[in-house]
């Protein structure tokens, strides 16, 4: 191709330019449009599958759900996790606005994990704070957002340009007025005039080189090359905490998350080569990564995610999530090596470095509206320095930035002529490689650059290595200038290498400037190993000064909104402190622009068949009537594709149309329709439930199971439908029936299923009986926040299938044996049934219908039945059933016979049974339980000891319980000792 002339730029204009159509960017665009702005959204990939959520997300890491967690605690937690260097005003936004965002996303159709009662199923994954909200169907997040962007009223205001890549923000008089970009397919040069610019370009994922050596095998989406970091820097904005890198413990070589957050509620956990838990940190932090790195390198390494101890059904359910969401090729990777979760624990390692405000703190400096230090320029999402902000924080700050940018637009004049010199410089940056057709290609230049990052910038860091890094990065300016390219695609990659080089230089200089160690592995300086709060309890910000040099300033941490005593007293007084530059260097040379080129043309194609015809209509949001012929096409592939098109756009009548497909003669469209209905359950009309009931008679078990799940979620199934289904031939269906009865608190209908022939169903019954009792609280214990140490800990059900809270949908959809049970939850993460009580019964006439949650009186009157069933289940031939039954006793008032049985179970040969018994004893009187728990606390299996500690915690104020807890404060298992110490530090008054 030949470069276009700078004066031939295709000019676009808008109120708000959003750069990046991922998490923060789509939300910024939606909100800005809702506030009346005209929005241009530029995305270098395609919005439907771009950014960190390209293939969805399996959960929210930091949801502060009322009743489950407290915003102040969250802010304090993040302040500690980030060693005090936090602008709490920003984190506070995420803490206080996150829940409304969860609800907004739910209105859009995103599904979050809920228990049988429709309450958010928040998990405690860390030892403190319950912030993890699973998204079992999280693969659809981008689909839902893209659907919102294409709503007619939004489309009038948001213009989307896919495959456009901006390279520079344009400024006039210090204010952002637009951007220079190019079309990465045609090569056209594009300029944008805007009243405000929101950068939402994600992390710099292509900074370090993965150990595999594959340039794109990064933890972050490799399209995220640090574009926004470079653009903000060159526009004059301040960046902060760049030396606080992103580093993660990942599946070795695959380099994706092993998802301890996902595996943990199922009973998986990280161990060293000896099978011991070793992580002492309470929250995800650089300190935790340092522990992983040390353990990996020690004689106890390597480190594994341990899952092979879990039963078949739990592993199946875990695969159902890990192999479909966020990084769905995990299964392909393991299979390629002949590994299987049943036989192989997952080897982990510490990833390459990256920059990411959302995971650590390295980002563009923003205020509590996402505004940067350059007027008119905003940053949101992983790009912005709001520590540990993750996906939910990206949504929150996308919303804030979009609102603020749109709000400012009426007061800002629309830019006319764009700054010519800046446009020329951007043009030069894009098209320069065309002049060097024989210059070194991007893969070689990028490989070398990123290898130097690994060699000299990755921690542990030293001043001398960082200086060598800078020499290489300076020298490589020449390599970049000589780099050659011949196609628009290669120009895109070449421009990205310039972003990576800028980020590498920022990373090295910031690391050199902060002369201390902080944030565990993120900024470990072996030459300066101590944390120096006196000099460095500051933000370290960098910016491009008037001479084009990288300059640094120390900004004092703003007074805390939430007190964190260990740092507060040491917060520095006074204003910003300038830092002497480490080394001076010449500005980047600029060369004149090359002559223009003629645009390429694409060849015409043949007339498309039906699928192509259908897909061509998909972008225009076809109605159900327009899709009708395709839904009834003779070719099942066309019908299945039509179902997929329906779920992309969800026109009115979608629910009914999908329900009709449930009777399709071919399993493919039928199962696609089941999956689609489940995916859309939050946006379906509850009235649809009535029409669905007939499908519980479907000859297809997947349809029957899916229908029961929908009836439960829509609260549209009378108890009789579920009770009848307890006799279904397929255990997946029976498990859905159990869940339905649990949601209606029907102990009376549920108890007979204790004699089911499937172990999974019996486990589900045992857990369900525990869930119902926990919900209605026979002992008068409130369901929420019951225990000081959190009986609600996610560890709860590692006894087996017991824990597969997120499994149900996955298992029935994919035909895996059902692990379909509720999260084991003795003290009740499940909150009170208030919400469900307000649901209107869809069919008030039906007897035994779902109505408001049954009263405590009903439950108490049914308790003898439940206890009879549990007593039968605790002597079940299957150890996992025994374990679940024993654990369910935690929610019941126990008689002496039950305590005796628990005591005997503590000698069972299966550790899962011993663990269940230890957990169940929390329902007994402390006089009877503590001596038994003392035995359990000395068990050979760490999960039994952990269960004992968790059961003892509510009695930590009693001398006899405290004495037992003191025996395990130095336990070899990190979880056991941490929970014991926490319980002793927070004695519960007797």
């Amino acid at each position: 191709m030949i470069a276009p002339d700078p004066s031939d730029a295709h000019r676009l204009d808008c109120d708000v330019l959003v750069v990046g159509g991922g998490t923060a960017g789509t939300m910024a665009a939606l909100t800005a449009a809702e506030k009346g702005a005209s929005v241009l959204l530029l995305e270098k990939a395609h919005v439907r599958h771009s950014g960190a959520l390209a293939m969805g997300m399996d959960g929210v890491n930091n949801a502060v759900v009322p009743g489950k967690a407290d915003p102040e605690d969250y802010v304090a937690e993040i302040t500690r996790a980030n060693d005090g260097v936090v602008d709490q005003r920003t984190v506070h936004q995420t803490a206080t606005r996150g829940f409304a965002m969860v609800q907004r996303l739910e209105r859009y159709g995103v599904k979050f994990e809920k228990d049988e009662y429709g309450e958010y199923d928040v998990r405690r994954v860390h030892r403190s704070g319950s912030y993890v909200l699973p998204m079992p169907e999280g693969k659809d997040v981008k689909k839902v957002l893209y659907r919102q962007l294409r709503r007619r009223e939004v489309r009038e205001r948001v213009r989307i340009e896919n495959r456009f890549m901006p390279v520079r923000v344009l400024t006039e008089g210090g204010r952002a007025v637009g951007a220079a970009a190019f079309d990465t397919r045609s090569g056209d040069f594009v300029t944008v005039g805007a009243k405000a610019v929101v950068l939402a370009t994600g992390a710099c994922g292509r900074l370090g080189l993965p150990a595999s050596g594959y340039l794109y095998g990064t933890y972050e989406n490799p399209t995220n090359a640090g574009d926004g970091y470079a653009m903000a820097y060159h526009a004059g904005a301040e960046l902060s905490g760049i030396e606080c890198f992103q580093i993660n413990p990942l599946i070795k070589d695959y380099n994706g998350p092993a998802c301890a957050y996902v595996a943990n509620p199922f009973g998986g956990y990280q161990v060293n080569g000896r099978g011991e838990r070793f992580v002492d940190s309470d929250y995800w932090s650089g300190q935790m990564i340092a522990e992983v790195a040390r353990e990996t390198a020690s004689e106890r390494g390597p480190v594994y995610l341990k899952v092979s101890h879990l039963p078949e059904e739990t592993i199946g359910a875990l695969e159902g999530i890990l192999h479909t969401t966020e990084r769905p090729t995990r299964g392909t990777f393991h299979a390629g090596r002949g590994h299987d979760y049943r036989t192989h624990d997952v080897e982990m390692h510490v990833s390459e470095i990256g920059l990411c405000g959302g995971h650590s703190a390295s980002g563009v400096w923003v205020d509590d509206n996402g505004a940067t230090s350059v007027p008119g320029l905003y940053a949101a999402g992983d790009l912005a320095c709001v520590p540990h902000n993750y996906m939910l924080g990206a949504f929150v700050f996308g919303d804030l930035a979009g609102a603020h940018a749109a709000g400012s637009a009426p007061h800002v004049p629309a830019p006319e002529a764009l700054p010519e010199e800046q446009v020329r410089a951007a043009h030069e940056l894009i098209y320069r490689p065309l002049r060097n057709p024989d210059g070194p290609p991007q893969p070689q230049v990028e490989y070398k650059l990123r290898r130097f990052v690994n060699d000299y910038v990755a921690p542990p860091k030293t001043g001398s290595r960082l200086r060598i890094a800078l020499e290489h990065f300076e020298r490589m300016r020449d390599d970049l200038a000589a780099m050659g390219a011949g196609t628009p695609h290669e120009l895109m990659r070449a421009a990205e290498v310039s972003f990576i080089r800028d980020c590498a230089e920022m990373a090295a200089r910031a690391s050199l400037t902060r002369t201390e160690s902080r944030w565990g592995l993120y900024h470990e300086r072996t030459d300066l190993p101590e944390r120096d709060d006196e000099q460095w309890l500051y933000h370290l910000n960098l910016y491009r000064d008037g001479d084009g040099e990288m300059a640094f300033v120390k900004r004092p941490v703003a007074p805390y909104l939430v007190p964190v005593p260990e740092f507060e007293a040491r917060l520095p007084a006074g204003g910003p402190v300038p830092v002497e530059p480490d080394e001076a260097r010449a500005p980047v040379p600029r060369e004149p622009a090359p002559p223009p080129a003629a645009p390429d043309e694409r060849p015409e194609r043949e007339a498309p068949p039906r699928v192509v015809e259908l897909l061509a209509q998909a972008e225009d949001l076809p109605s159900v009537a327009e899709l009708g012929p395709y839904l009834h096409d003779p070719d099942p592939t066309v019908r299945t594709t039509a179902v997929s098109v329906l779920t992309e756009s969800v026109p009115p009548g979608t629910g009914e149309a999908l329900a009709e497909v449930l009777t399709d003669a071919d399993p493919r469209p039928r199962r696609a329709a089941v999956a689609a209905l489940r995916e859309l359950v939050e946006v379906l009309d509850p009235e649809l439930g009535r029409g669905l009931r007939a499908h519980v008679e479907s000859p297809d078990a997947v349809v029957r199971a899916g229908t029961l799940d929908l009836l439960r979620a829509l609260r549209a199934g009378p108890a009789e439908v579920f009770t009848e289904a307890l006799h279904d031939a397929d255990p997946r269906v029976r498990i859905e029936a159990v869940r339905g009865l649990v949601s209606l608190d029907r102990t009376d209908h549920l108890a007979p299923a204790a004699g089911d022939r499937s172990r999974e169903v019996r486990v589900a019954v045992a857990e369900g009986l525990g869930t119902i009792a926990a919900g209605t609280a026979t002992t008068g214990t409130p369901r929420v926040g019951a225990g000081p140490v959190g009986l609600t800990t996610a560890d709860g059900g590692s006894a087996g299938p017991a824990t597969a809270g997120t499994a149900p949908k996955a298992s029935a959809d994919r035909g895996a044996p059902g692990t379909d049970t509720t999260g084991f939850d003795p003290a009740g993460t499940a909150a009170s049934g208030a919400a469900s009580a307000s649901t209107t019964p869809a069919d008030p006439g039906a007897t035994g219908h779902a109505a408001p949650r049954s009263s405590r009186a009903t439950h108490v009157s049914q308790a003898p039945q439940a206890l009879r069933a549990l007593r039968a289940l605790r002597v079940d031939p299957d150890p996992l059933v025994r374990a679940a039954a024993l654990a369910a006793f935690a929610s019941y008032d126990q008689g002496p016979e039950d305590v005796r049985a628990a005591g005997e179970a503590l000698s069972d040969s299966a550790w899962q049974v011993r663990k269940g018994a230890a957990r169940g004893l929390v329902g007994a009187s402390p006089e009877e339980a503590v001596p038994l728990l003392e035995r359990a606390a000395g068990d050979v299996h760490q999960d039994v000891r952990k269960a004992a500690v968790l059961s003892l915690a509510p009695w930590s104020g009693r001398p006899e319980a405290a004495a037992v807890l003191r025996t395990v404060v130095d336990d070899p298992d990190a979880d056991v000792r941490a929970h014991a110490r926490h319980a002793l530090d927070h004695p519960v008054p007797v």
Partner: protein
Amino acid sequence: MASVHQRADVPVTIDESLCIDGCTLCVEMCPLDSLSIHPETNKAYMHVDECWYCGPCAARCPTGAVTVNMPYLLR
């Protein structure tokens, strides 16, 4: 500078017998823009070895023509 052509084992493969003429869904969806329609065969193919093994190309293909393998270096 000399130019060499190297063979590479690429992660995304297309079953041309299943790939539909005129369909560009996988090409539109790839975040790295690594897929293209071959001008001679009119079928999709991987034109650069740039892959995050993320999978929308395979997941969204109406006929199951697309397979995502691990990049060779990770296998």
